[in-house]
């Protein structure tokens, strides 16, 4: 079967190949209890034991990262941390379905994706630590700097995908976006551009039900965010965002279609933001614990674990190795985030332009003189 089914309503007049699912119930393969549901072919790559174990391991490590970052923001080691606890199936499933040559465009919430991609966890936290705006080399990791102005990364992904296609490469660009971000004009313009150019782009909306305090019902009147695909004539799919098998599957299909010239896809992954918006937020002001309780048993990691256990894949050795890797990462974070990094004030002026303007040279010299004088004062004990 094909997951992105042509709507069963034939004669609706959609152009051929149009395969947005109008049924708003999300696609799911692994149910809340960790049992396979739906109709996924046995040879689907997502079901290969190696892949399943790699996925599970990435989720164990990703979650440990998130928990550690949350701890460290409480200790004042990060300026702010927006947790993706509970969204790991999205964060990790999407990443594992891409190739290293594909680009992706994370938001502030997507550190776990970045770590999954291979970026040094400390570099992944540079922005949130307050050291610099981006800590890793975007070209090396084919990962754009984390984006804060909502949905503004979506047109970048459309443009990069279009460029890749013009260049004859089979690169795909995936942009993450929140449910709130879908309301921005840039989201609309990006999807439209990508559709018109049939660019190999994937717009992956993590619908975690909230934009800070604003619930989805105040964000849209549509039955599903995936329905927006209809208006762009692009493929759209709604997937259970806590089912890492389904997420990998739809991203994989979307990427394959994009590479084959089939154009962009809008994916809405239905998930839940288990923590407050960031450590600075107080979620009790706008939502009930009971809502959070409802989502706890729907945990993406527990679900996968249950399945793997049932399959007998989770051997003690496998579990021990993953736990060890996770703890090593946490230890490393603790140590390295504990150090006070050197942030060079000269960086202020270095990268504004390829060649600093005369004005900037003046200003840099002024600051240097100020700091030198202060140092002299300090030395003189003043």
């Amino acid at each position, binding site marked *: 079967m094909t997951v992105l089914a042509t709507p069963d309503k034939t004669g609706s007049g959609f152009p051929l190949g149009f395969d947005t699912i109008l049924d708003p119930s999300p696609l799911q393969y692994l149910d809340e209890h960790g049992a396979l549901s739906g109709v996924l072919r046995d040879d689907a790559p997502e079901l290969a034991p190696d892949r399943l174990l790699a996925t599970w391991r990435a989720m164990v490590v990703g979650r440990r990262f998130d928990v550690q970052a949350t701890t460290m923001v409480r200790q004042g080691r990060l*300026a*702010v941390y927006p947790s993706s606890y509970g969204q790991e199936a999205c964060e990790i499933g999407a990443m594992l379905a891409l190739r290293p040559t594909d680009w992706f465009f994370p938001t*502030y919430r997507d550190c776990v994706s970045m770590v999954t991609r291979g970026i040094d966890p400390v570099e992944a936290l540079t*922005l*949130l*630590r*307050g*050291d*610099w*705006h981006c800590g890793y080399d975007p070209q090396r990791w084919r990962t754009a700097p984390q984006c*804060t*102005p*909502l949905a503004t990364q979506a047109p970048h992904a459309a443009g990069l995908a279009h460029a890749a296609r013009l260049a004859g490469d089979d690169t795909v660009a995936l942009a993450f976006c929140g449910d*709130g*971000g879908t*309301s*921005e*004009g*840039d989201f609309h313009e990006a999807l439209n551009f990508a559709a018109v150019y049939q660019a190999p782009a994937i717009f992956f909306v993590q619908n975690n039900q909230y*934009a*800070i*305090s*604003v619930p989805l019902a*105040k*964000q*849209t009147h549509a039955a599903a965010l995936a329905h927006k695909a209809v208006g762009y004539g692009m493929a759209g799919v709604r997937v259970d965002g806590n089912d890492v098998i389904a997420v990998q599957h739809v991203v994989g299909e979307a990427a394959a279609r994009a590479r084959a010239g089939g154009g962009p896809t809008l994916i809405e992954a239905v998930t839940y933001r288990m923590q407050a918006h960031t450590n*600075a*937020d107080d979620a009790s*002001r*706008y939502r009930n614990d009971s809502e959070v309780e409802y989502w706890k048993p729907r945990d993406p990691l527990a679900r996968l674990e249950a399945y793997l256990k049932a399959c007998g894949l989770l051997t003690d050795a496998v579990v021990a190795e993953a736990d060890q890797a996770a703890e090593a990462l946490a230890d490393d974070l603790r140590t390295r985030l504990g150090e006070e*990094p050197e*942030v060079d*004030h000269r*960086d*202020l*002026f270095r990268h*504004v332009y390829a060649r600093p*303007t005369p*004005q*900037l040279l003046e*200003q840099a010299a002024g*600051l240097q003189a*100020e*700091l030198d004088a*202060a140092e002299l004062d300090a030395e003189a004990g003043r």
Partner: protein
Amino acid sequence: MTATLDAAGRAAQNTEISLAQAVNRALRDAMTADEKVVVFGEDVGVLGGVFRVTDGLTRDFGEQRCFDTPLAEAGIMGTAIGMAMYGYRPVVEMQFDAFSYPAFEQIASHLAKMRNRTRGALPLPVVVRVPYGGGIGGVEHHSDSSEGYFVATPGLHVVTPATVSDAYTMLRAAIESDDPVIFMEPKRLYWSKDVLSTTGPEIGRAAIRRQGTDATLIAYGPTVSTALETAEAARAEGYDLEVVDLRSIVPFDDETVCASVRKTGRAVVIHEAAGFGGTGAEIAARVSERCFHWLEAPVRRVTGFDIPYPPPKLERHHLPSVDRILDAVASLQWEDR
């Protein structure tokens, strides 16, 4: 400005409140005074805003008077314009300065121009609250000083309080204005506290915050307190500095500013935004022109560098500091003394 405090307000007049609370009280009192006043934006409802400035408004005035919007700033601004066309007086919040940029076209092409386009038939009594400036350790895009963009857009009033009392009285006046007002709130001062007084000057006038004879520091919003600190520190170095708090950038109070500079003969302009093409350029240019024969030294500017706002770990180097202002004062050619 004829803002009156309600009973609760009067009772509270002797206790200190924060600047954020002063804004909240101004919103409350304006909503009570005029049922056409509505407040909306991202997270301003149940949450009460990310800075708690709209705390309790939905609870006390209902969802029809204070409501959350979808996450789209052009939509917020455009909706406000449409509501104002129908007789409402919207007060909208841009959650952080840089997040007003998506609304820029609505602001520049409609909000600023509608009265003019329609020869006065469609005034737009809209207040746009923009928390601005740095110094709170915010990650990128959370510390911009965007006032210059609005200042350069005819048709907008641009004002910014630096005190708890001004936050209250100026916001009341802004809401009562029949023209759009960009109300820049120095977010660094949200937690500063003072007793509320409603006897301040009119909204368009500057205030002399400190009298002095040697030089004039011209500041607004978040840099007013830095200027005052500098004036204190300068006493030790033998300078008696006057501090002008502009309060309103558009309209500009040439009278007060020029009187001060003509008296002292020297001026330093201070703001957080990048210097090049910033609001300080206008101030320095007009002071230089209008006080030409009174100036003993060139007007100096102490501003943010001409760089994107830096990350938290570096912002202390970027922001105008007491030391940097003192250096500028010292450079004002005192050879004649």
